[in-house]
């Protein structure tokens, strides 16, 4: 009887572990091959439960995929002497090169502001602004522009209501990595949310790598730029001269 009581206390003290998320990805490697056109990733999983399904609250699932962070500068144009010129620049200390959030419902409704801050889930919170340019009238306009531009390019995605949750147990969603993604380790975080709070979290990684030839060319370009330049010249001379020699041969 006492043991049972202790157990009950443990469960009461650990409500977080009452529901646990188990996740699978359709792929955890993306290869940027010569004909890479973007990639679709299926994220699916289940909720494991030791206890009965709580009746008084609803369960929500949020999936966030975050690409490697980059330092960036956001420029604003203004008209100078009739033409549009970049006149103001605002640095961003780190902005994810890719950021997609999918959820079962609108983030503002299913997630409390506190939980969002702690776990940095919404796009705005994934961007770290630099402390420079704070004297500007509208520093936020630059960050908003960053999000707007990247959303237009498919690099930032806010897909509310696209996680399909069935019988509070099975969930799945599809996210598209566009063709302009960069290399690196992409963190996929999956959150279980109840009453605005995160009750369980799972993190896994998707490895985005250039394929062998592309990898080799990039490495050569950055590590051995002189050799790379020679390669570029060799190819130009070879094809330029070779093709005309070939055509001359064909004509005779």
């Amino acid at each position, binding site marked *: 009887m006492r043991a049972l009581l202790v157990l009950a206390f443990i469960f009461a003290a650990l409500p977080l572990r009452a529901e646990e998320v188990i996740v699978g990805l359709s792929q955890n490697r993306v290869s940027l091959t010569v004909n890479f056109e973007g990639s679709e990733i299926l994220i699916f999983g289940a909720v494991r439960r030791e206890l009965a399904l709580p009746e008084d609250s609803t369960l929500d699932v949020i999936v966030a995929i975050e690409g490697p962070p980059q*330092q960036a500068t956001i420029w604003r144009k203004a008209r100078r002497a009739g033409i549009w010129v970049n006149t103001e620049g605002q640095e961003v200390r780190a902005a994810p090169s890719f950021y997609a959030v999918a959820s079962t419902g609108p983030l503002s409704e299913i997630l409390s502001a506190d939980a969002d801050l702690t776990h940095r889930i919404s796009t705005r919170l994934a961007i770290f602004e630099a402390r420079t340019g704070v004297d500007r009238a509208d520093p936020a306009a630059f960050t908003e522009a960053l999000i707007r*531009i990247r959303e237009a390019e498919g690099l930032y995605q806010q897909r509310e209501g696209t996680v399909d949750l069935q019988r509070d147990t099975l969930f799945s969603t599809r996210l598209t990595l566009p063709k302009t993604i960069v290399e690196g380790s992409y963190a996929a975080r999956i959150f279980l949310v109840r009453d605005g709070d995160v009750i369980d979290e799972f993190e896994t990684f998707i490895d985005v790598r250039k394929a062998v030839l592309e990898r080799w060319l990039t490495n050569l370009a950055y590590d051995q730029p002189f050799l790379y330049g020679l390669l570029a010249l060799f*190819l130009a001379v070879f094809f330029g001269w070779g093709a005309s020699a070939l055509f001359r041969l064909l004509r005779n």
Partner: protein
Amino acid sequence: MQIYLPIAETSVNAFTLLGVGGGVGVLSGMFGVGGGFLITPLLFFIGVPPAVAVATGVNQVVASSISGVLAHLKRKTVDLRMGTVLLIGGLFGSLLGIWFFNLMSRLGQIDLIVQLSYVIFLGIIGGLMLQESLRALMRSKNPNAARRKLHTHTWVHNLPMKMKFRTSGLYISVFPPLLVGVGVGILAAIMGVGGGFVLVPAMIYLLGMPTKVVIGTSLFQVTFVAAFTTMMHAVTNQSVDVMLAIFLILGGVIGAQVGTRLGVKLRAEQLRILLALLVLAVCGKIAFDLLWTPSELYSITVEGRF
């Protein structure tokens, strides 16, 4: 079919690339122009970052001029001495251009500089070409019209440090060819062009070189300056994309062969007007982008990317 460009870090349609290379190749075969001044802006239009377009464009120039320069060397229609002086100026100009290019990249103004240079130069070339070809058309209808004097003495011939250029039959100061070379080198580095469109008129009208050596000598200078500039871009800002270059070059060499064949059959005078109009259209499109209120006032530059 999409092709992933490892340096530009984006993919573009392979057939579009072959089409750009091939189309410009046809024009260059027909009119004997390098075509770099069309390839680079066309690459902007299909979404290649300007820095990559410029550096790769100049690599393509090497491919499109190499066989020409070899043919001219064989025919001995290259003034090697003049070519070397122009080349020395060109290498210096290229260094200057690369320095300016990298400085402007850091300041976030390189796109503007490249676009402005294109508007100015395409405007001038397109205008002159149109004027010239319209005049030639008039002349062919009216053969009695006055002809332009071919060789005139100007201030250029009165500068110090004179040098003998036997092949060209000139005895002039080294400064004009050096300065012309510098100018062409700067253009090569900033615009990703060979610069023949500036070099050829400068050699004829400014230096007074005989036309039979002008093409060979300019190709000689352009090839080496373009090769040097490719190298400098590769070493200082890693913006040469060989994958992109291969498609442009393949399209270009095939297009050039077709163009040469077509040029023999078609009437060049009328076509030259079309080329002039095309150049002006590209100029107009870039100018429009600079003048028209953009739909997005903001843009992003990322450390270490283009």
